[in-house]
């Protein structure tokens, strides 16, 4: 195959997988079909299913599969896809990085659309540098940590990173900008603008959400993403070269690959174009040894060489392959860091001693210790949650649980007949549950309590039954009793006051969400009583 064709094949493949990634990202939402055949359903317990396998990229990501395996001893669904990618790497090197990885594609685009470095500068930037060992440090940190039961790989895994950034920052940020633009247009007094505003809003709503979405630390997730994109100005594909643990893992597996770069030293005129266009800083220039583990299989060097001094060939060359340049210090440092972090992360006491009231995990979440062995912090459950309740944590789960999911009832609530989060979780950190199981067992995510001082009827200020009327369980967990209160003027006033029956409460949080006392509602849900934890059990 000619070099030009290979490069175009790569571009087509990159575009295809990037678009597929974005498509699955958008499809990670409540099904848009609103015409269920209600006559077939009498219980309201039909299960929600998504039309597309939105977790596909996570299944294909061997780091997700491997870390879940060694950390939680679980074979995740679709792990064979990940195994397939490893096999592909064994045969052909890091073609995943060059042809498939959507995060890599984004960096590739950011670095090559308008490169900041010119000619010789770029050539210098693409020479090998010791910084590439950082990614092996990261990989060994994550894997060692996983072995000890703290799976942090999602923080640095490229698929999780990209999904989280897009779902929790870029998409809602763009959506908020569009909503405010269309709102301004709808409010204007120019008719054609009104019309455009309403029409445009209707068009973008299914993609960006019907209401503006909000995520705790979303600004930071977005800023980090933009910063990583910016780094491409210093070194093309900075992330892939220096930071990506998945790239490091695939680099290890590329040791035995059949893909060879044949260099004809006698033809080389030393023009340096190969290095200037090399995406992985893999030393393509003849006369020096090719860094197989760094090569992203972009085939740029092959294409740009004016003397045909470079050629990719397939051939068995076991024994002659050079191992990755990991650096002993990076590996040992990584192992040391991986040994330390799980225990440093426990010093806050969140895992063993205290329970954070705000750590309300999605329905079906595993018990906390187990949960942290598999949760990728990818944000898929947060993206799919129809009420925007599921958010990334900051400190609620301790430092080792940073960016894992929790429900914030001020932003949303757990819809009684929805089980989407568990149905999409790529690693099973949130179990797949049926609506029947959720309602009948029931699966409790917390329990509600009334703050009488702030409650309108309890404080004698006004009648209000909002929490009770929203309570979805049957019989209702929130019930009303008449109370005779004395007004300031000394008159008798009969009000209905709410109580919570903990035996019935599932912690869905719609009461907290709808309570008219905003900011610090008079009825709140805390994690105590959640059914996934024995430690947090409330009633005998």
């Amino acid at each position, binding site marked *: 195959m000619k070099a030009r064709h290979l490069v175009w094949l790569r571009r087509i493949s990159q575009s295809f997988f990037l678009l597929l990634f974005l498509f699955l990202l958008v499809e990670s939402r*409540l099904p*848009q*079909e*609103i*015409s*269920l*055949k*209600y*006559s077939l*359903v*009498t*219980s*309201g317990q039909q299960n929600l299913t998504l039309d597309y396998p939105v977790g596909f990229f996570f299944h294909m990501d061997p780091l997700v599969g491997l870390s879940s395996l060694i950390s939680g001893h679980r074979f995740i669904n679709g792990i064979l896809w990940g195994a397939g990618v490893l096999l592909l790497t064994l045969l052909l090197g890091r073609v995943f990085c060059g042809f498939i990885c959507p995060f890599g594609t984004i960096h590739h685009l950011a670095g090559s659309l308008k490169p900041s470095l010119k000619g010789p500068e770029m050539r210098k930037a693409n020479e090998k540098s010791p910084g590439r060992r950082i990614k092996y440090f990261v990989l060994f940190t994550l894997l060692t940590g996983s072995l000890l039961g703290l799976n942090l790989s999602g923080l640095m895994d490229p698929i999780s990173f990209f999904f989280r950034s897009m779902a929790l920052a870029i998409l809602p940020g763009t959506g908020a900008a569009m909503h405010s633009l*269309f*709102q301004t247009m*709808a*409010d204007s*007094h120019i*008719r054609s603008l*009104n*019309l455009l*505003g*309403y*029409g445009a*809003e*209707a*068009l973008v*709503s299914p993609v960006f959400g*019907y*209401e503006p979405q909000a995520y705790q630390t979303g600004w930071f997730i977005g800023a980090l993403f933009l910063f990583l994109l910016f780094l491409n100005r210093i070194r093309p594909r900075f992330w892939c070269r220096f930071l990506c643990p998945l790239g490091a893992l695939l680099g290890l597996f590329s040791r035995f690959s059949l893909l060879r770069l044949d260099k004809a030293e006698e033809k080389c005129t030393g023009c340096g174009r190969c290095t200037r266009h090399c995406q992985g800083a893999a030393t393509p220039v003849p006369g020096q040894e090719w860094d197989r583990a760094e090569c992203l299989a972009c085939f740029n060097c092959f294409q740009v060489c004016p003397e045909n001094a470079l050629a990719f060939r397939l051939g068995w060359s076991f024994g002659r392959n050079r191992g990755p340049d990991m650096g002993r210090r990076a590996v040992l440092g990584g192992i040391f860091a991986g040994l330390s972090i799980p225990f440093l992360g426990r010093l806050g006491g969140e895992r063993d001693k205290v329970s954070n009231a705000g750590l309300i995990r999605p329905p079906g979440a595993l018990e906390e210790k187990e949960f942290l062995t598999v949760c990728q912090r990818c944000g898929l459950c947060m993206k799919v949650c*129809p*009420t925007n309740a599921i958010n990334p944590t900051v400190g609620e789960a301790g430092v080792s649980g940073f960016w894992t999911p929790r429900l914030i009832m001020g932003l949303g609530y757990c*819809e*009684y*007949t*929805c089980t989407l989060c568990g149905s999409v979780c790529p690693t099973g950190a949130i179990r797949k549950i049926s609506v029947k199981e959720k309602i009948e067992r029931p699966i409790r995510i917390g329990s509600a309590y009334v703050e009488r001082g702030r409650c*309108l009827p309890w404080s004698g200020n*006004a*009648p*209000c*039954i*909002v929490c*009770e*009327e*929203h*309570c*979805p*369980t*049957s*019989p*209702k967990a929130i019930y*009303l009793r008449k109370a005779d209160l004395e007004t300031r003027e000394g008159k008798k006033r009969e009000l*209905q006051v709410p109580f919570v029956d903990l035996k019935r409460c599932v912690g869905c949080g*719609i009461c907290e969400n*709808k*309570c*008219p006392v905003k900011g610090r509602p008079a009825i709140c849900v805390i994690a105590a009583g959640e059914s996934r934890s024995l430690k947090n059990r409330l009633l005998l």
Partner: protein
Amino acid sequence: MCFHDPIDRREAVKKIFGLAGSVVLGTVFAGPLGFPKPAMAGLKRSRFLVEGTGMHDGYSVKKLVEQVFDAAGGPGRFISKGDVVAIKPNISWARVPVLAATTNPEVLKAVIELCQAAGAKRVRIVDHTIQDPRRCFAITGAGLVAKQTGADLVYPRSSLMKDMKIRGNRLDVWPVFIPLVEADKLINIPVAKHHSLSMLTLGMKNWIGGVGGGRWSLHQDINESIVDLTQFFKPTVTLIDAVRIMTRNGPSGGSEAYVVKKNTLILSDDPVAADARAALLFGKRPGDLGFVRLGEKRGLGTSDFQSLDLKRVSL
């Protein structure tokens, strides 16, 4: 920004709905058949109340709706050719129809088809749901009805809630779900059920689902709020769905144990009388309901529904 003079926007929205069907979910029904206008249309009419009852099992809800409307003079009495009709069901909760927390989709469908047959240019299902709209549309059956009839199902997006002057006793300026005020005709189709604060939720209370904003605070003076909103919206006609009624643990219920089959429909152009009649189904006197008493006092209608042009039909 001028929120308090809705005139410009009112016209603008009218235009938008006329042209851009994409604002709403659902498709556009094309080519309704004309319905000859009955002779009495256009005449000054006295207020009426029609009760329809399905006497035996297996009666057709659709037929009952048609007969009830026919007894009141036919749908052509209320709907003129080319009208934009907004229908306000109660689909606030993501509950299946048998739980009687929401308007029966069969009733909803029958009314939409009557409007279309009477020549309505466009029929819209408009409700500001309490739970997630997409879940409510799907589970209550409203989504399927919209798909089958071609009626528009309006998504209660925040840009469609505009501050308007309610000019009530209790409510002054409040955000209103615009498609309700932009329609030529407004049909209220509540479900009859228990409510833990206002005792029952019938036709008049259904208007709380027609506004946006911090509507939970309306509960602090529920009866005044209900009457203010009824006075503001002025429905063309109210059809109370009492095919199934929820007798306790309302308004959201959640068990069929709370549901009683009454197989009854109540149609009236007097919102107070319709609610007064429906109260009897629950074994309550009209005077027990604060909003009925208050509505009568404010002159919105009469609780003495016997004094109206009263008709009964049964199947």
